[in-house]
């Protein structure tokens, strides 16, 4: 066989039970996974690099509102979004990471820009998003990220004063980590 090419993705692990997840929701998650794996595999098959493929896959899942990343991220104690991401290149052990992001549409794209254009590995919060703007990494208003489902989940938890992995959160029988 020629040089193997392969990709694997995850959309989170946790209290994901068939008996608790309505069929339509299963199909929605299936669709999100299928889209991400096919588009990213096509990148690989088209001679794309492993870095391109993992960035493509994660970007697709960040854009898909059901997964807890990018759009559809869970809501924090302030009622806001706070995202984090990392990417690592096995060829040279180079890496990029960003934490405390509130406006960056695709945190994985910022992590990759940090890896390529900064002398650091991890940038945080306002500084990270200044770097994003300097490198034309798209930013969005807060409402772009917060879905009704995540907002409702947060309201219930906040009333209980609890913090939770989203897969254990209310309405979250099938939710994901």
């Amino acid at each position, binding site marked *: *066989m*020629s*040089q*193997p*090419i*392969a*990709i*694997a*993705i*995850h*959309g*989170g*692990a*946790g*209290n*994901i039970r*068939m008996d608790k997840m309505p069929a339509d929701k*299963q199909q929605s998650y299936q669709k*999100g*996974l299928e889209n991400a794996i*096919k588009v*990213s595999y096509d990148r690989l*098959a088209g*001679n*794309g*690099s*492993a*870095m391109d493929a*993992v960035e493509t*896959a*994660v970007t697709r*899942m*960040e854009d898909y509102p059901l*997964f*807890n*990343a990018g759009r*559809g991220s*869970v809501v*924090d104690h302030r009622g806001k979004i*706070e*995202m*984090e*991401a*990392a*990417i*690592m*290149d*096995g*060829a040279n052990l180079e*890496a990029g*990471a960003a*934490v*405390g992001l509130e406006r960056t549409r*695709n*945190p994985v794209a910022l992590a990759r820009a940090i890896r390529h254009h900064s002398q650091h*590995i991890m940038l945080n919060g306002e500084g990270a998003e200044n770097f994003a703007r300097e490198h034309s990494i798209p930013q969005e208003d807060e409402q772009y990220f917060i879905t009704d489902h995540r907002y409702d989940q947060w309201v219930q938890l906040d009333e209980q004063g609890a*913090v939770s*992995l989203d897969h254990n959160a209310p309405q979250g029988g*099938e939710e*994901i980590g």
Partner: protein
Amino acid sequence: TVGAVALDGNGHLAAATSTGGMVNKKYNRIGDTPLIGAGTYADNRWGAVSTTGHGEYFMRLVAAYSVISMREFGGMELTRATQLLIHHKLDKLGGQGGLIAIDPSGRICMPFNAPGMFRASMRNDAQEPLIAMFD
């Protein structure tokens, strides 16, 4: 949390992970996802890893790099290293979650100790992608 690991036609490996973290989290809490070695790691010689679940446990285990070091220094196959990490070390600590990993031969492992994990994989010797959610 979402993640990906890949092997390209030049034999290069890469890993990426992204998350919104925990619901209602406070104090700017940071999880394993952005920490190189805990939630994300890649080395062409040994493998690429992306984790998901209760981040604090993956941080304490330095989970992603632990899989790589079991391969590099312990001579383990990817399957055994990832199973040990999830079903021995994570279990013993009382943590819950999963990981995806790939090695230079294109072998893919996706173990988890939670009721389910959203996951998918595709290789050039397969016709269709594998897509799964439940145990």
